[in-house]
């Protein structure tokens, strides 16, 4: 069973992932931690705008802020993606079994006709 916190987190995760800039930020962070200013550089948007994107990513717990002295380092946290990944795996397993069963059925039918 999953609770309300999990549900909200899943919503937050999908909202966070629904934007190309945020996905690009995640791809960058997946390669290693970075400062906010470093993240803003490749995007043609203001620091303020990048901060807003990062807030959404933090809310979805896809990104975590670490304080190193006076610096804020951002780190990618992939765990929230797990629920989404789980659903995809479940459906793929189900439909794969269906297609394989159809294949088997049609193969058997062909043999019977011979």
């Amino acid at each position, binding site marked *: *069973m999953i609770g309300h916190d999990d549900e909200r987190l899943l919503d937050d995760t999908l*909202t966070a992932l629904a934007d190309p800039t945020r996905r690009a930020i995640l791809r960058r962070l997946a390669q290693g931690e970075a400062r906010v200013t470093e993240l803003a550089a490749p995007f043609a948007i203001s620091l303020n705008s990048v901060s807003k994107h990062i807030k959404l990513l933090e809310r979805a717990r896809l990104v975590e802020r670490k304080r190193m002295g006076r610096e804020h380092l951002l780190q990618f946290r992939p765990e929230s993606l797990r*629920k*989404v990944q789980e659903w995809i*795996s479940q459906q793929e397993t189900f439909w794969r*079994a269906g*297609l394989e069963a159809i294949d088997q059925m*049609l193969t058997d039918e062909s043999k019977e006709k011979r």
Partner: protein
Amino acid sequence: MGAKVEARVSHRFKASADRVYDAWLDPAQVRVWMAASLRTFGLSGEIRRVEIDPKIGGKFFFSDMRGETEARHWGTYLELDRPRKIVFTWIIDESGEADPSVVTLTIEPETEGCTATIVHAMDAQWIDYVSRTEDGWGRMFKQIDATLAESSSLQ
């Protein structure tokens, strides 16, 4: 909220596109492969009802027994284009009626046989529901999940 998540599976068939297409809409054939598919998950595969109204806007209803519980699946055909495409909603509980998941089956004829691809798209709210469900697919996949979770890595 609008964010969609997709599951996608492809399979190559030696059988023709027509035969693969018909396997989805002929109740007698659906009974055979649905039962076989459910048995691969360790379920009885005891099919109770298979009702199909194969027209756009027509409904289908499949159910099978899992112990004392009747697991029900139903939906509406949104597109039917023999032998290339079937689009249908996929619902496992009344609460899914409002915003159902959508399954798109495309069948590409090839010189010998065909390739079928299934894309199952769902929004966040509905995924939550599936995760919570103790009966129906949620339960059925729980054990598979345990196995998959170990091998599936997140990028």
